[in-house]
Each structure stands twice: as C-alpha cells, then as structure tokens.
C-alpha cells in the first residue's frame, strides 16, 4: 500500500471546524458510556487516550511525529499496541470516527477491535475504514519509539527482547533517551546489552572509548560494527577496534570448539544409548543380535503410538513411553531369545544370520502394518528450544535431555550389573556357565532376564531417538553397524568401554565433519576403527583372564 494519504473528503467538506466538533461529540458519547461505571478517573483517562489518538489523525507528518512523541511520553499501557498498529497500518478510523485496530486485512470485510477497549467490533467493510498513513521517517521513529516503550515495560522479558532488537539499530534520535534508560535499568543483562547497543552507535560516530564497551561481545552485529571500524580511516579507532576484534575471534574459536564438543557428545550419547543394550546382549552374553536396531525402532514406534493414544499431551506421552518402550522391546527380546536364539547356543555366526532374518521380518512388519513412511513424533514444549550460553553459542534442549538420559541409563545399568543379584548371576554365568549352574544359579532364567534387559535398553534408546531423528522402518538399520562398532571398539563385555568408545566416536565424527563432510567423516571413522582393531583386536578395554578365552 502506498504511504501517501488519500484526500480526506469528509474533512475537506466540513472544513477545520469539523474536527473539534466531532471530538467533542465523541467525548460526550464516551462520557455517557462511562457514566454508569461512575469511575471519574477512568473517564478522564479515556478522554486523554482519545485525544492522543486524535492528534495522530492530522495531515502533516511533522504533527504526527509530535503526536507519537506525546503517546510515548504519556506512558499509557496501551501505547505499544497503538504504535505497533500504526506501524503496521492497522490503526484505522471508522466512518463514525471511532479508532479501531484491524485484526485481519484480507478479503472485503475486515474484523476490527476497538483501539481503546480492545473489544471486538465485528466485521466492517474496508470501504468504511480510513487508514492513518505514515511515511518512512515516521516508520523509523515508530520503531525506536516502540523500542523505548518496551524498554520502560515492567516485564523483564519484554525489556530483554527490546534490547536485543536495538543492537545495531540505534540512531541519533534514540541515542539520547537510551542513555537515560541505561541509567534507570536494574537488570544487569539488559543493561549490558543496552550499553553495547549504544556503544555500536558511538563507534559509528568515531568514538574510540566505545570499543571498550564492546570487548568480549560475540554478537554478530557487534563484530560487523567492529570490523567496519577496523577498516575505517581513523588509525586510533581502527587499531582499537582491530585488537578488540582479534580478542573476539579468539573467544569465538573457543566457542566453536565447545559447540563441536557438545554436538559430538550429543551424537556420542545417541551411539552409547544404541550400543549399550548391545553391550549387554553381545558383550556380556555373547549373543549377536542383528535385530537390535529393530528393537530400537520398536521403542521409537512405541513413543509414536503413545502420542497417538494421548493426543494433545506429547510430554506425558513421552514420559509414559519410557517404561512402555522398555517393556515392548524387552518382550520382543524375550520372544526372540525363546523363539530362536536358545536353539543356537554356542553358534554365534548362525545366531547372527537368524537374528538378521528377524530384523528383516520386523522391518517389513512395521512397513505393512503401520506405514513405509516416516511417522512424526512431537517434541514436547519443555524439550524444544535451546539454552543460550552466549551470543554465539546455544545448546539445543532436546539434545541435552538425550545426553542426560543416556548417562542416566548408563548409570542404572552399571548399578544393575555391579550391585544387584541379577548382575552377579549374569557375570557368573558369563564367566563359567557350568560352575554357575553347579552353584545353583538358573542359567536359563539369567539368559532370559539378561536378554530382556539388553532389549529393553534398546527400546529406551528408541524413545530417546524419536526426539532426534525420523521414526521410520529404517531407523534401526541406520544404527546397527555403528552400535556394533562402538561395542567392539570399547571392548566386548565392558560397559565403561562402551561409554568411552561411544562418546569419543561421536566427538571424532563431529571434529572431522567440518573439513571432510558428513559422509567422508563417517567413512574415515569406519576406516580408523578397522585399523584400530588391527592394533587392539579386543577393543579399548579388553577383558582379562579366563573370561577372555572363548
């Protein structure tokens, strides 16, 4: 829409007198409306507000500018909405002279709300509405005015958001009031941001002292301003800005390293989650379960099914999916153990083939019963978003949760294997089956329980993975080779090894990725593992003693 105000036929006809008359009439009407409430003070405030808005409805842009200043100075709580509506061209006037805010300007009739009370007034034909026009100069003024209004807001979040917006946007007009705002600001974070915003402006004005205020800031706008100043004509300023910029670059490098580490640990935690169940079934029991990936997939699909059962409550569904995913995968694991693996005891290569067949069946089952397409699992609100550590570094929450979850699962498994009766029996059966049975341990029962535990953990991994990747029939396949690599690298039968191997593989992958690309990084990691296993065929932490023979 053009900024040029259309000729105002009404005013042209009635002349200068019509304005005050109409205003008086309106005032009267409003007073009448307010009378039943008997609130004299409120009536006065409404009159004042109308007067403020009336002042906007003038032709000269200079007068409008004054009117905007008046609104800002008045401190009316609705001022921000008015200014925003004016900026967006949604502050309009009906034929009757009433100020309204257009809620939706599509179609022929627009729904509007009263600008003063905010109550909806139904739909009004666009022809009966008159827009309060603004030009570019006013637009800039409005933006800073809104920022200033926000900076006065009692709400801390609003002040913070406004301060964020101001960085790099400060001009001469805003600089003076900003200094006063900084003085009055109580929150140190907002204050620092405002000081930076002002300093960027001062830097642009050639003030060398401003560099000191910008030191150590990682905000891209600050860096832009500094690098511009560093390339400027003033040698003193350029030198100061240059050294500040160098310091910032150093800091950024550290930040990037931390970020890589975080992503690496996150990827590693996924690998650990996927592999730790395998570390139990393969590492402790010596059973190669190629269907492990599909057990992960079952866990992920359980999450999806839970969310289907509890629509609108993704968070609750996710929490319930943790035990449910464990149970589903554990039961599937027991079925696999009883149905197939128990007949193949002592024949690891045959076990590998049979469980691979099971993995194919499970995949195809999901494809036929549910869908060959990916299902979407909702991330609950408390898991989405990120924590901003500083301007250049923010940690995504879902990855942080998964990292924590992985460590929790690992700790729980460690406890079970080291401190519980089951763990003791599992270790006994692993080391010497015949002797353990002679001591009265029911080896078959231990087998079932161990396999259920390992499979259940795979289900947990699936629940966690559903928050990070697509849930589809191929989910498990993508992790099975990586999981085996982690277990083999860590040393079979060693949970600590799995943790260390998983996390370090994740970090190595992320470190390699920037200069090698994702696919090549993966290939390099695989080749490295193959070479590593040449050197240490039994992994990072090999089992010692008699249990190693076998």
């Amino acid at each position, binding site marked *: 829409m053009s900024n040029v105000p259309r000729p105002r036929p009404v005013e042209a006809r009635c002349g200068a007198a019509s304005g005050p008359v109409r205003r008086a009439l309106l005032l009267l009407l409003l007073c009448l409306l307010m009378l039943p409430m008997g609130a004299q003070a409120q009536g006065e405030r409404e009159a004042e507000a109308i007067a403020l808005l009336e002042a906007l409805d003038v032709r000269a842009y200079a007068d409008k500018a004054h009117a905007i200043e008046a609104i800002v100075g008045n401190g009316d709580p609705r001022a921000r909405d008015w200014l925003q509506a004016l900026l967006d061209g949604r502050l309009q006037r009906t034929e009757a002279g009433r100020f309204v805010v257009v809620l939706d300007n599509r179609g022929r009739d627009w729904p509007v709300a009263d600008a003063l009370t905010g109550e909806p007034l139904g739909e009004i034909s666009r022809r009966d509405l008159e827009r309060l026009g603004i030009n570019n100069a006013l637009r800039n003024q409005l933006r800073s005015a809104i920022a200033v209004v926000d900076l006065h807001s009692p709400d801390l979040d609003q002040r913070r958001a406004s301060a964020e917006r101001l960085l790099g946007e400060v001009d001469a007009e805003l600089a003076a009031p900003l200094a006063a705002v900084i003085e009055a600001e109580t929150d140190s974070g907002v204050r620092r941001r405002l000081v930076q915003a002002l300093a960027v402006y001062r830097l642009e004005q050639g003030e060398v002292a401003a560099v000191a205020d910008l030191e150590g800031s990682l905000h891209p706008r600050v860096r832009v301003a500094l690098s511009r100043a560093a390339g400027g004509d003033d040698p003193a300023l350029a030198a100061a800005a240059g050294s500040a910029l160098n310091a910032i670059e150093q800091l950024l490098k550290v930040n990037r390293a931390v970020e890589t580490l975080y992503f690496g640990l996150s990827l590693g935690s996924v690998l650990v989650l996927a592999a730790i169940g395998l570390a139990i079934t393969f590492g402790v029991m010596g059973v190669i379960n190629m269907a492990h990936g599909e057990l992960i997939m079952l866990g992920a699909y359980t999450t999806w099914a839970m969310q289907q059962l509890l629509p609108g409550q993704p968070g609750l569904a996710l929490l319930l999916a943790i035990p449910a995913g464990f149970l589903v995968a554990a039961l599937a694991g027991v079925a696999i153990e009883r149905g197939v693996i128990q007949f193949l005891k002592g024949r690891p290569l045959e076990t590998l083939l049979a469980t691979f067949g099971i993995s194919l069946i499970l*995949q195809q089952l999901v494809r036929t019963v549910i869908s060959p397409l990916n299902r979407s699992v909702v991330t609950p609100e408390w898991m989405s978003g990120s924590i901003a550590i500083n301007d250049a570094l923010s940690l995504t929450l879902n990855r942080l949760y998964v990292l924590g979850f992985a460590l929790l699962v690992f700790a729980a498994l460690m406890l079970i294997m080291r401190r519980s009766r089951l763990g003791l029996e599992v270790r006994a059966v692993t080391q010497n089956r015949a002797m353990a049975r002679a001591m009265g341990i029911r080896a078959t029962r231990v087998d079932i329980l161990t396999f259920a535990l390992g499979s259940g953990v795979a289900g947990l991994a699936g629940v966690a993975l559903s928050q990070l990747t697509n849930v589809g029939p191929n989910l498990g396949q993508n992790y099975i080779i990586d999981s085996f690599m982690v277990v083999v690298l860590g040393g079979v039968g060693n949970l600590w090894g799995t943790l260390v191997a998983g996390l370090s593989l994740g970090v190595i992958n992320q470190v390699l990725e920037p200069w090698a690309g994702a696919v090549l990084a993966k290939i390099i990691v695989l080749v490295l593992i193959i070479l590593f296993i040449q*050197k240490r065929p039994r992994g990072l932490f090999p089992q010692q003693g008699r249990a190693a023979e076998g």
Partner: protein
Amino acid sequence: MWLTRPFNERSTRRFLGVLLGALVLVTVLHVAVPQGHPLHINAYTVNLFGKYLSYALLAVAVDLVWGYLGILSLGHGAFFALGGYAMGMYLMRQIGDRGVYGHPELPDFMVFLDWQSLPWYWAGFDMAWFAFPMVLLAPGALALVFGFLAFRSRVTGVYLSIITQALTFALMLAFFRNEMGFGGNNGLTDFREILGFNLRSDATRLGLFIASGVALALGYVLCRAIVGSKLGRVCVATRDAEARTRFLGYRVERVQLFVFVVSAMLAGLAGALYVPQVGIINPSEFSPLFSIEIVLWVALGGRATLYGAVIGAILVNYAKTVFTGVMPDAWLFALGGLFVLVTVLLPRGVAGLLAYRVQGRRRQHDEGTTGKEVSA
C-alpha cells in the same frame, strides 16, 4: 596334479555334468525351438539364468571362505561390486562418443558434473587387456590389504564378520559420493557393447550366459582343487581348531590370506559377469544387506559342499524373482523367515538333506570330508 584331481571326484563330475547339461539344454531351447513353442526359452529368461549363474559363482566364493575356512565374510558384496565396477568402467569407456552428451572421452556423468578430464584411475579401462585383469586384481588387492591387516592381528570369528560388514558399508558410503568418480548413486549404466558385440542383442546375451556357466565351472573346479589339496586340509583344520593348527607349526594367517584373496577374486569375476547382463552397477551392490543375503544362499544350500552354494543361490534368487513379481511386500518376510528357518532347522542346508537321503539309501557313510562337524 592338484588341478586335475577334482575330476576324479564323483561329486565334481556330477556337478559339471549337470551344469553342462543345463547350459546345452537352455541354449538348444533358446536357439533351436521356434518362438511361440511352449518349450521355447526367451532371451529375457536366458539373461535371468545368466544372472543366477553369476550369483552362483559368488556363492561358491563365499562358501570357500565360510565353509572351509570358517570366516564368515559379511562383506563379499564389496568384492563382487568392485569386480562389477571394473567391468562397468570398461563398458562405460566403450560407449565412446555415443553418450547423451556425445563427449569423445568422458562418460556422461562426468560431463554432467562438469569434469574436464578423466581421473587417473580411469586410465586404461578403454582397453580390454587392461580392464579384464583389473576385474580380478582390484578385489584381490582390497582383500590382500584387508586380509593382511585382519589375519595378522588374529581378528577372527564374529569380530571379523562385523569388520567385513563395516568395510562394505564404508565402501557403499564412499561410492555414493559423486566426487569418487564412479557415477555416485546412479552408478554406471547405459552400456552399449562388450568386445565389439552389441550388449542388447540376444546372441550376446546367450554368449554371456554361457560365459557365466563356464566361469562357474572353472571357479568350482578351482575351489574343489584347493579344498582337496593339502592346503585345503589345513583350511579345514584352521576352521575347526585354529589355535591347535597354529601350534602344529602351520602359518595359519598365510593360509587364510591366500584363500581369502582367491575367494575375493572369484567374487570379482562374478561381479564382472553380472554387470553386462543386468546393464547397471551402482553402490547398492555394496549394501550390507546384499552381502548378508549371499551368506543366506550358502547357508540354505549347505555349507562346505560348494555345490550346495550353487543350489542355494539359484533357489533363493529364483524365489526372489517369483516373489517380487507376485507379491513384492512378502519377499522380505520370506527372506527373513528363510534366515531363521535355515539356521534353526536346517543347519546343513539343502545339500545336507540330499546327503541324508543318499546316505539312507546306500546305508553307508559319507566321504567324511564334506564337513560333518561344521562348527562356527
């Protein structure tokens, strides 16, 4: 002579007889019986049989290392695909300037990627005398390096299986990259002729079918010769008791390396025969699924018999052709079910069943060499 000894064996003579009979029969039914006759075999079916035969050779290669050496390779698809790529590169260069872009030297996908010249590793592949040996040498070299590293540090059993799987997985990822210069995920295709014969003519297809059959026969005899030799005895000893064999003074890792490389070369040969018959080679041949499927063929047919591998490969692939045509969704169910059933109920495969029947009829014992006590 060790290479002629297999011909003294009953099973080898019988196998070669059946194979020769099948080749002659198919050829006669294809050429001599007129089209439209119920017994006529059309060119498509001949092509299909040729594909099965190259798969059978691949299965024999896997059976050699798994059945007689106890090395379960989950990466033999990689050697197969490497041989296929070597052949594919030769066929690609034979296209010449008849490609879509008409470039005299560069294959289409390179022109498409805006490459200016052939990468160095494509040099020489326009000549058959160079390309055909590469079919054996490329997989052989990979097997030599990989096997040397693995066997020297005594990586065996399940570890070796998983590492071979990682090997083929890594190669698959690598070949999917366009930068590798092997056509990315489209692979190499659009072949025209081999040694001057038009690949799309029926006569060439019949020729390739016969070539596959001959290669299978040669591969079988070679494997049989190895297995029957003193080396083969050491192989079986290694399979059944590796540490004991080593203590007896045999250099187990050398035996393993030699047989592994031979097997990889046979797999490469199978790949090279496969590619001109299907007309395409792409990185999906490197997928771990394919490699593990090969193992299933061998397991179904029966390990450590060689002819069992051939039976398994043909049976499974025939079933696959039928299933994927009739009800594609059911194929993975059937394949998965086969894995489970064969390993649990039929540990000695179809060959085991046959041997059992023969035994029952003759009331006498088996030769004893065909791995009664096959252990993992």
